[in-house]
């Protein structure tokens, strides 16, 4: 465990909980700042509908208890924090007997799978392109082609997703347009299912990768140019080291470090962007579930999903932070 000191761990853990607390608090407070207290209005609306939904009396009770609507606002807040931190996310309003935790448990693996694969691919390719662009020994032909990969950088994920569905699923019919696996397949570890999952995952992943790799490429190019000006690079050349060794061990190894920080910082944006991709592809992850929650006015579901998205992002950032001392041994010796 070289590098990973207790102080560092404690600081990062504090950051982890602070992020979750902040997110949960914003979700709690801001709707209440709106005129006419939407939460109370919603419960009234539910009561009005109660004739139509079976078991809704129990549900409304759960809501009232959860928000402590009869108590003052700080009681409501404490109740809310307690239920949320124990992952007691309540009943879904639209598909009543099922609980939000169960619905999320089904959706989360799809999101985490799609997002981690797409982000890792995009991070690796983007950084490789950026490093090659800044490297002076890169062939001129390659250097001329590589910037083309930045073409789609500024386009939001979901717009690219719509374009890809139109071109590759509707026009060329190479990939299925919607969903995560074919109908009538047995879920599990069998070949047709895995093949179908991969086929369905290509387009969503592709739209995230294509849209985000330019971001890494540009950042890496800048870092690599700065690194190239360092004295140790000149020394490495003067020593007559092989160019490949200079490129990997001296150039990339140093230039990529800030990129990991950037990854931790931009993860929230990536998660947000991919919710829309899932929505466009009707991919059964958190994003699509969220859309269904919006369509059905299922506030518990929406709130639960967003809370889980915050937790997931914070966890991913926490993991990156824990890996950081291993990637950059200098970090843990920094005393602040």
């Amino acid at each position: 465990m070289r590098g990973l000191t207790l102080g560092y761990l404690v600081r990062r853990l504090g950051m982890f909980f602070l992020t979750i607390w902040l997110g949960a608090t914003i979700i709690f407070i801001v709707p209440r700042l709106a005129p006419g207290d939407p939460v109370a209005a919603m419960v009234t609306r539910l009561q009005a509908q109660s004739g139509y939904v079976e078991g809704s009396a129990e549900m409304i009770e759960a809501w009232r208890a959860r928000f402590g609507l009869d108590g003052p606002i700080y009681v409501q807040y404490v109740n809310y924090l307690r239920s949320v931190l124990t992952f007691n996310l309540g009943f879904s309003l639209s598909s009543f007997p099922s609980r939000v935790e169960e619905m999320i448990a089904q959706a989360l693996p799809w999101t985490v799978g799609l997002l981690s694969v797409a982000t890792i691919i995009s991070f690796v390719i983007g950084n490789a392109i950026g490093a090659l662009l800044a490297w002076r020994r890169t062939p001129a032909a390659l250097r001329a082609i590589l910037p083309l990969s930045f073409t789609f950088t500024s386009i939001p994920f979901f717009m690219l997703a719509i374009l890809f569905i139109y071109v590759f699923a509707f026009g060329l019919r190479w990939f299925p347009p919607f969903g995560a696996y074919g109908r009538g397949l047995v879920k599990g570890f069998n070949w047709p299912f895995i093949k179908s999952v991969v086929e369905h995952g290509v387009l969503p992943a592709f739209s995230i990768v294509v849209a985000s790799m330019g971001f890494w490429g540009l950042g890496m190019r800048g870092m690599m140019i700065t690194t190239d000006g360092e004295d140790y690079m000149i020394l490495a050349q003067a020593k007559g080291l092989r160019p490949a060794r200079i490129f990997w061990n001296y150039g990339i190894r140093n230039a990529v470090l800030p990129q990991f920080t950037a990854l931790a910082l931009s993860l929230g944006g990536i998660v947000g962007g991919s919710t829309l991709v899932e929505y466009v592809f009707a991919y059964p992850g958190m994003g699509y579930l969220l859309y269904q929650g919006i369509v059905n006015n299922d506030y518990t579901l929406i709130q639960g999903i967003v809370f889980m998205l915050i937790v997931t992002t914070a966890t991913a950032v926490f993991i990156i932070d824990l890996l950081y001392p291993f990637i950059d041994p200098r970090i843990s010796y920094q005393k602040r």
Partner: protein
Amino acid sequence: MATVTAAQAIGRRVPRVSRWQSPWLNAKLLVGFAMVLSMALLGVVGRLFWDVRLAHAASSPLNLPPVFAKAGPNFPPPDPAHPLGTESNGRDMLAVLIVGAPRSLRIGLIAAGIGMGIGIILGFTSGFVGGWLDNVIRTFADAFITIPSLAVLIVISAYVRQISVENMALLLAAFAWPGPTRLIRAQVLSMRERGYVLMARLSNASTFAIMFKEMLPNMLPYLAASFTGNVSGAILAATGLEALGLGPTRVPTLGMTIFYAIRAAAIIRGMWWWWGVPIAALVVIFSGLFLMTIGLDEIANPRLRGARPQ
């Protein structure tokens, strides 16, 4: 180049290099600015030549393809009265474009402007005052930046269904401040001990003067790059919310058009102009802002500029 070397050879009397050598005349910045400006002008000039009431539902015939497209057997023949076609709710796409594009830009500008204002205040406070205040601001900015803002905005706008364009911009601004704050803090820390700042301090300049007369002008390219990035981020979030059906509902926006297109399965029905027109406009805006950000980065960090002498 020749004039510059000559000027340098003469001596230091020449106050500045040639007017055309200014780093602010960056090709990427100018092209990007032109792209963004074209979309803004579309809204101003377009209103003079086109009836924007056609942007409302049921004002035009349904499902007309654009005039330059081959009409499929499933669609009526194109009508020159609706050059960009119409969608299934009877909106004229050109009118939607004219109304929607400037609105998206305005949301982005308001949100990023407020975010930048908060960032300047917090960033300077953090960098100058230091101590526990610095720790608090830095920690909160770091925590805030990792929260998926779009997801939180979805919760808020799901509760508050009737949202105006201005309120939406205010909501977005709540997530636009950590970037500038971090940036300004880092810049203040690195500038604090520079010669010209020490000089100003020795000549008894007030802290305020040092901040705004000495430091801020030197940060301008960084701030501008951060600003354009934030405008882009705010427009992205706004469009995302609208595309989920959570934006302002009274007025047509580009994101709302995408929402209707997705809901009506326009992609599978082959009505590419329905989603294509708003996306094309947004791509011009996003690409323009992106080019501006890169251009401003190059101004701030001269090393990033193109080919280096080997």
